C-alpha cells in the first residue's frame, strides 16, 4: 500500500453561467469553494490522510487554500483530532487554459500520482469531465454549481471524512463505492459522455452552453430521473422515475403540443410546462438514434456537440460509469465498524506535520 492520497479538483468557473441572468440561479463564491477545501483538509487530517493533491486555477481557489495553509496553526487540545492538515501538493507547472481541459489534466495527474479518491467540486459538468479522466479511482462529487443532480449538496467536512476513510483503507473496499451509469453519445468520430442526461436541442450553436429553454429540446435521454431532481431529468422524474441504482435508464421525445404535459423545474427558478410523448426505457448497451437532422446535443445540461445533416448521432446507456464514493454508506459502515471511535487517551492516527504547499 502506498500513501493515503486524496486528489481534490475544484472548478473556479462553476456556478457562473447564463442561468444567473435568465433565472435566479445562485452564485457560488470562490471563497466558499476554498473554505470547503479547508474543511475537507481538517477531515482528512482527522482520519489520517497523508497527502492531498490540489488542482491549481486562476479563479483564486488554490491561492486562497495556499494562504490558509500558511496561516494554519496546529493546535492540539486533547479533544481535537482535526488540528493537523495533511501535506498539500499543488498541481502547478502546467498552463491553465480556463477550460474543461484543466480539470482533465489535473485529474489525470492525480490518478498517475496514486490518488485513492478524487474529490471534485463543481457542477454536473465538472463531475462529468472529472469522471472521464478518473478511470477506476473512486470519485466523490460535491456540488458547487447551478442545477446539479449528480454531485451531492453535502457538507464538505462529512464528505472529507468519507473520502479519507476510503483513501486510508480504513473502510473496507466493498460497500464504499457504487458504480454509476453513463450515457455515451456518438456523432461521427466524436464521443461525449453524460452522467445524468443527454438532450437534443434544435438550437444551432453551443452559445452560452446551458440549456434553459425547453422549447428547443426534442429528445431526452436519462441515465436516471429522480422525482426531486432539478434540471432536464426532472421532466421524466415526475413521469417515469428511475433511480440511479436501477440498471436501466429512460428516454422520451418532447414536443410542445404532446398530450402528456408536466410541470418541470428545469433550472433553479424556472418551472415550465413540458410536453412529453413516447417514454421508453433505455437498457444497458442498447443504442438509441437521435431523430433530429441537425442541432446541438447537450450533456448534463450543457450544449456540447453540434451535428448536421448526414450525421446520425446515437446515444447508448453504459453500466460502467465512474466509481462513486457513497458517503452515507461509508459513514454508516464506519458507525458499525467503529472507525471513528477512539480510546480516551488515543492521540489519533499518525499524521504528518503541517506543511505548506510546494509552489
Amino acid at each position: 500500500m502506498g500513501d493515503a492520497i486524496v486528489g481534490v479538483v475544484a472548478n473556479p468557473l462553476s456556478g457562473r453561467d447564463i442561468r444567473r441572468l435568465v433565472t435566479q440561479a445562485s452564485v457560488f463564491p470562490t471563497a466558499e469553494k476554498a473554505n470547503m477545501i479547508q474543511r475537507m483538509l481538517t477531515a482528512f487530517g482527522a482520519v489520517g490522510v497523508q497527502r492531498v493533491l490540489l488542482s491549481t486555477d486562476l479563479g483564486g481557489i488554490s491561492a486562497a487554500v495556499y494562504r490558509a495553509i500558511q496561516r494554519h496553526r496546529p493546535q492540539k487540545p486533547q479533544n481535537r483530532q482535526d488540528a493537523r492538515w495533511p501535506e498539500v501538493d499543488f498541481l502547478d507547472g502546467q498552463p491553465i487554459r480556463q477550460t474543461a481541459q484543466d480539470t482533465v489534466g489535473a485529474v489525470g495527474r492525480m490518478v498517475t500520482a496514486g490518488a485513492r479518491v478524487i474529490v471534485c467540486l463543481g457542477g454536473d459538468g465538472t463531475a462529468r469531465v472529472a469522471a472521464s479522466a478518473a478511470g477506476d479511482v473512486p470519485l466523490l462529487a460535491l456540488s458547487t454549481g447551478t442545477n446539479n443532480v449528480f454531485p451531492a449538496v453535502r457538507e464538505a467536512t462529512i464528505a472529507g471524512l468519507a473520502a479519507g476513510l476510503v483513501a486510508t483503507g480504513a473502510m473496507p473496499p466493498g460497500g464504499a463505492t457504487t458504480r454509476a451509469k453513463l450515457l455515451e453519445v456518438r456523432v461521427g468520430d466524436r464521443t461525449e459522455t453524460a452522467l445524468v442526461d443527454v438532450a437534443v436541442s434544435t438550437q444551432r450553436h453551443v452559445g452560452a452552453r446551458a440549456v434553459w429553454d425547453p422549447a428547443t429540446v426534442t429528445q431526452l435521454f436519462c441515465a436516471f430521473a429522480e422525482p426531486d431532481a432539478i434540471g432536464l431529468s426532472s421532466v421524466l422524474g415526475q413521469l417515469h422515475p428511475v433511480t440511479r441504482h436501477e440498471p436501466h435508464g429512460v428516454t422520451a421525445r418532447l414536443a410542445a403540443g404532446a398530450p402528456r404535459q408536466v410541470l418541470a423545474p428545469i433550472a433553479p427558478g424556472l418551472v415550465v410546462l413540458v410536453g412529453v410523448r413516447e417514454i421508453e426505457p433505455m437498457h444497458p448497451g442498447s443504442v438509441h438514434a437521435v431523430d433530429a437532422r441537425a442541432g446541438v446535443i447537450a450533456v448534463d445540461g450543457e450544449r456540447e456537440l453540434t451535428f448536421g445533416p448526414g450525421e446520425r448521432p446515437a446515444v447508448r446507456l453504459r453500466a460502467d460509469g465512474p466509481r462513486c464514493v457513497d458517503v452515507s454508506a461509508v459513514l454508516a459502515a464506519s458507525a458499525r465498524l467503529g472507525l471513528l471511535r477512539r480510546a480516551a487517551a488515543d492521540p489519533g492516527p499518525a499524521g504528518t506535520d503541517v506543511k505548506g504547499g510546494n509552489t
Partner: protein
Amino acid sequence: MTDTEERKAPTGRTPTREHLLDVYRMMRTIREFEERVHAEFATGEIPGFVHLYAGEEASAVGVCSNLDGRDTIASTHRGHGHCIARGVDVVEMMAEIYGRKTGSCHGKGGSMHIADLSKGMLGANGIVGGGPPLICGTALAAKLKGTGGVSVAFFGDGGSNQGTTLESMNLASVWNLPAVFVAENNGYAETTSSAWSVASDNIADRAAGFGMPGVIVDGFDFFAVHEAASEAIARARDGGGPTLIEMKFTRYYGHFEGDQQTYRADEVEHARAELDCLKRFADRVTETGELSRADLRAVDAQVASLIDQAVDEAKAAPLPAEADLLTDVYVRY
C-alpha cells in the same frame, strides 16, 4: 459600414443569414483594422499610443449586434473594436488614428478619443473606468425620456477595480437603469495579472454586491456572447435593471504597441490556434451550412480592400492646420 440606425436588432436566438454575414464582416473588419494598425505603427507614422483589440472581437460584436439606434455605448482606451462594432466609419477612424483632419474627431483626438455621438458611441476613453459613469447618464436619460434605449459600458479588468466603475454599478442598480456592464477581462491591466489584482477573482462575482446578475462568458465565442448579451439587453430594455457580464479571453498584442510582454508565456499562440473567435465562428457557420466558405472569403476580400482604402486615404489626408486649433473647443447645446 452598416449604419446602426438602419441595422435591425436580431430577434430570436438564432441569427439570420444576413445577420451572421454582418457579424462576420464586423469581426473581420476589427481584426484587419488592428492587424494593419499594428503593422503601420511599427513604421513610426502613427502618432501617440495605440492599444489593439485583436482577439477580443467577439465581445464588441456579440454585444453591439444586439443594439439599435436608441442605444449608447461607452468604450475604453482599447476602443477601436467597440467603435467599429457600433458602426463608426472605418475610413474616418483610421484618419483619426493618423491625426488627420478628415478623422472622426478632425484629427485632434487620436486612437483613445474616437467618438461618434450620431452612432451612439460616447467615445473611446483614456481614463480607465471612465466609461461606466457616462452610461449611467445616458441610461438615466433613456429611462426618464422613455425611449427604450439601453446603455452599455465596456471596461477592462483594470477598470473593474476603479471606484468609478463600482459606483456606477451601484447607482445603476439603485436607479434600476437600463444598463449593461461588460467587463472585458483579458487577463492583464497593462502588465498586472487580473488573477492577482482582482480580489474577487471573477469580476462577475461583484455583481451580487450590487444586487444585479453577474455572468461569465467565453469571450472568444461570438454565440456565447451574443446569447448572454441578448438576454441582458432585453432585460434592461424591459425595465429589469442592469447586468454585469464578464468576458474571459486574452488580447493578441501587448497593452500598447511596443509592450515587450515579458509578463506572459504562450497564451497568445494558444488562443490564436485554438480559441480564435473568427476561426471558431467560420467553422461553426460553415458546419451548420448557414454560410459558405465562399461567402466568408468574399467578405474577407471586401474588408481587406476597405482597410487598404482607409490607410491610403489617411496617409493622403491633411493634418489639422494651425487655424483649426481653436475650432471645436466649445460646443453650443
